[in-house]
């Protein structure tokens, strides 16, 4: 196996072995050893580069590939681009593909500046390497927070533009003409003076001697050939015929498959196990145990699953066996009543502004714990060998998986290889590698590769949840009814605190907990947003839309309350606060116009709107609903207007808005994770129900033309969904829902409850509580 050597120039984004670009099954057996040495070498080079003050910029791109010993004979300018003598250019994509279309989006950015046609490229998942593939916004090789497009926008185009410049220089040298007499297009360099052209693959020897250019100008929006168009996504053809490989689909020689029994209460332990019956089940080959779980290993999943039924297991439930939703809720309220908050964002003197306001209004909002429920249950295939470990998985955080498994196994990170696969949904679920570490904990007990699959029930019950929140919000209005002061006191757990390995020190603000509240699209002169940290005895995690999904629901619902309280139209009211925010103002106007805002609707029907600027994008959503006398919410039409800046692939942007909104509506309508005696009550799609096609109405998304820097879009729709829905429900029924998911009983027509569910007394009392003061 070749050893990686690095010259004086450290690689910008490093190099992976060419075989790593081929099919996964081939990769694993041929190349894992070489890769490990490669990473070790590159880390050393990185350390040297760092010592010289170098950052992963173009400066470090070395022609011909920095490692002469590598098997890849093509042009490898940095970590993202591989140009072979013949065949397609490969782009190595550091962001993971979980449906958002980032393989296509990042490939389009590079193809644009490299001047290759989109049918001349293919993509490969980046191996785990923070030094090479750390994403500039997250500062980690991870995919989340709608940062992939924003993080890649400059560096990837710069890398491709530099590579193109070097190829042009190589051709010019060959033809003895000045580089400015040459240009590149569709994978070839052309000469204006001699009329000749050469494909990139024919320039590999000449390009090796070219200097790495600095500060190559990037194209302006008017010059784009590919960006702004919507070519076929690179991943979708294989997803129509069953050939796409997700983590759960990986099959490696000698592999066995495990089904698990996991202590139903987190923090509990295995107390007693009798596996005699399980071992007698045909097809069962092993029964393994860790401190809090048992794995039955079979030739196939069914054997393992049958073996589980034959286990006799006793658990020590541990310290969380008394955790109940009611207690968690009470603790949140108690914390909000008694604890001192941490200041998040302050403009002006809120107490004084509130005292001076013509009118004040306040409300309390409550949000539930949420599971992710990706369609692909979590799973991992792990092969632990004495000298290393291979992991096949779809993860949003390959280096976190690598590092945590290495720690478990007592190995160096570079001994652990992660082969990332397509993710059958991420939504934050696959940012935390807990289930991968669990799989490794079993796999290290056996010599063969082990695929561990959690059942749907395990995937939901052992998820790390979106935190529950209890928020108290208030506004002081001026004589025109507009807010002159807004305060929002957020009480809930800290996702950042659970996510960061050292935790978040007490007294430190969790920026995620206040994101979407501390800064809104609106000009409100005085603002105070603070946070009371109340960690429930429940592990929490990022969930699609992160902080804004929670906070924008509260802000946008409450501003709707304010508008109605002063008898103003919710769209007009918002527009009055948007004089200084033309992009948000524009999307709001466009969405309202497209939706026919203000038109008369049948009884118990209404439109609601939401607006936010999250992840660098501006999104307005109008939701039209009808609420049946029995309190069933029927979605009638969805209309969004979006300004994402430059839309790299407009069709993908629209798809993300559609999908993100539907995802958010599903949760707002149906979802809450609750706990009884430490156990999660929900388990599968029967009791953690999801929206279905018959419940989703026509949806139109209007993309606003823009030449601003691209914003993130994967989570924006989810942020928009819940407030537009509940504002529409208010317009239809006069019932303000301040708690998610929506409570159908609150929406029943008076008297209907007698014949449907429960009695009218409870409904009437609830209505009284819920309707505006």
């Amino acid at each position, binding site marked *: 196996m070749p050893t990686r050597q690095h010259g004086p120039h450290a690689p910008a984004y490093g190099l992976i072995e060419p075989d790593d670009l081929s099919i996964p099954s081939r990769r694993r057996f041929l190349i894992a050893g070489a890769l490990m040495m490669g990473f070790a070498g590159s880390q050393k080079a990185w350390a040297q580069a760092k010592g010289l003050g170098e950052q992963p910029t173009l400066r470090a791109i070395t022609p011909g590939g920095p490692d002469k010993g590598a098997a890849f004979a093509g042009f490898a300018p940095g970590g993202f681009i591989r140009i072979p003598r013949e065949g397609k250019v490969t782009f190595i994509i550091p962001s993971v593909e979980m449906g958002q279309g980032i393989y296509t989006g990042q490939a389009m950015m590079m193809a644009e500046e490299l001047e290759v046609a989109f049918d001349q490229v293919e993509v490969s998942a980046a191996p785990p390497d923070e030094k090479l593939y750390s994403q500039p916004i997250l500062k980690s090789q991870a995919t989340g927070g709608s940062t992939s497009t924003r993080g890649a926008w400059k560096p990837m185009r710069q890398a491709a533009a530099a590579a193109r410049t070097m190829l042009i220089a190589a051709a010019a040298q060959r033809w003895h003409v000045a580089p400015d007499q040459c240009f590149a297009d569709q994978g070839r360099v052309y000469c204006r003076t001699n009329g000749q052209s050469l494909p990139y693959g024919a320039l590999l020897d000449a390009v090796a001697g070219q200097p790495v250019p600095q500060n190559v100008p990037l194209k302006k929006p008017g010059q784009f050939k590919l960006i702004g168009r919507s070519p076929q996504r690179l991943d979708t053809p294989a997803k129509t015929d069953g050939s796409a490989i997700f983590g759960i689909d990986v099959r490696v020689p000698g592999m066995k498959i495990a089904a698990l029994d996991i202590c139903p209460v987190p923090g509990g332990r295995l107390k007693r196990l009798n596996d005699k019956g399980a071992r007698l089940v045909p097809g069962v080959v092993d029964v393994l145990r860790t401190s809090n779980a048992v794995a039955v290993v079979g030739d196939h999943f069914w054997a393992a699953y049958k073996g589980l039924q034959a286990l006799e297991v006793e658990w020590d439930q541990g310290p969380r066996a008394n955790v109940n939703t009611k207690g968690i809720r009470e603790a949140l309220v108690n914390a909000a009543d008694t604890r001192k908050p941490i200041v998040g964002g302050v403009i002006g003197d809120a107490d004084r502004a509130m005292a001076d306001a013509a009118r004040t209004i306040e409300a309390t909002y409550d949000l539930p714990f949420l599971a992710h429920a*990706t369609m692909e249950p979590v799973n991992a295939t792990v092969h632990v060998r004495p000298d290393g470990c291979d992991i096949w998985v779809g993860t949003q955080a390959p280096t976190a998986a690598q590092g945590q498994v290495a720690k478990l196994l007592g190995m160096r990170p570079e001994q652990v290889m992660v082969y990332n696969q397509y993710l059958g949904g991420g939504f934050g679920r696959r940012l935390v590698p807990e289930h991968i570490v669990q799989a490794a904990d079993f796999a290290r007990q056996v010599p063969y590769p082990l695929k561990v699959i959690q059942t749907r029930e395990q995937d939901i019950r052992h998820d790390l949840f979106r935190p529950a929140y209890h928020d108290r919000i208030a506004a002081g209005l001026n004589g025109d009814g507009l807010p002159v002061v807004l305060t929002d006191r957020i009480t809930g757990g800290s996702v950042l605190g659970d996510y960061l390995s050292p935790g978040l020190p007490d007294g430190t603000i969790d920026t995620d907990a206040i994101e979407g509240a501390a800064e809104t699209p609106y000009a409100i002169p005085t603002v105070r947003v603070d946070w009371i940290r109340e960690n429930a005895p429940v592990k929490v995690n990022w969930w699609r839309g992160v902080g804004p999904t929670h906070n924008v629901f509260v802000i946008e619902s409450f501003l709707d309350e304010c508008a109605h309280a002063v008898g103003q139209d919710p769209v007009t009211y918002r527009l009055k606060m948007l004089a200084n925010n033309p992009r948000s103002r524009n999307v709001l106007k466009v969405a309202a116009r497209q939706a026919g805002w203000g038109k008369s609707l049948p009884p118990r029907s209404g439109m609601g709107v939401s607006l936010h600027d999250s992840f660098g994008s501006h999104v307005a959503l109008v939701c039209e609903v009808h609420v049946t006398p029995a309190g069933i919410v029927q979605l009638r039409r969805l209309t969004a207007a979006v300004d994402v800046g430059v839309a790299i692939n407009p069709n993908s942007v629209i798809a993300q808005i559609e999908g993100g909104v539907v995802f958010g509506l599903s949760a707002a309508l149906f979802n809450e994770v609750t706990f009884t005696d430490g156990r999660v009550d929900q388990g599968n799609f*029967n009791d953690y129900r999801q929206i279905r096609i018959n419940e989703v109405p026509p949806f139109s998304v209007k993309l606003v033309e823009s030449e601003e820097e691209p914003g993130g879009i994967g989570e924006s729709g989810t942020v928009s969904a819940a407030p537009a829905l509940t504002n529409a429900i208010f317009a239809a029924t006069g019932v303000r829902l301040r708690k998610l998911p929506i409570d159908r009983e609150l929406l029943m027509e008076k008297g209907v409850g007698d014949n449907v569910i429960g009695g009218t007394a409870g409904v009437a009392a609830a209505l009284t509580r819920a309707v505006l003061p």
Partner: protein
Amino acid sequence: MPYDLQVNGQAHRVDVPDDMPLLWILRDVIGLTGTKFGCGIAQCGVCTVHLDGKPVRSCVLPVAAVGPRAITTVEGVGETPQGRAVQQAWLAVEVIQCGYCQSGQIMSAAALLGRNPRPDDAAIDAAMAGNICRCGTYPRIRAAIKKAAGLPTEHV
């Protein structure tokens, strides 16, 4: 116990327990992983395959209940006119996001067109409501089914 299965026109002899769901035979014994595991209780539809052209949830279908019926999976459905039309429409409309549920969506859609070549919205809802998509591709699924059927569609 040995079973002779016809999968995508090919004969497979498998020696498996009588109660083993077809899903796991396809995935773990025969090696056709296009058919997915989602819920195990016929709630989500990602495991949908055809038996003699009719859609079934393979995660709850014991092998003993298959009998001599021809099994078609997403890997083979492109050989049928409806399956091919659905796959092409799925790409033309760019339905797919993560893609994990889409094998099942495509199988349900192809079966729908097999029995109803010109489905209206109600027929689409009835045929597709058993298939969950967490990425929220439903508006495009509806549009793509109409496109595959040669019907006008307002989406995209």
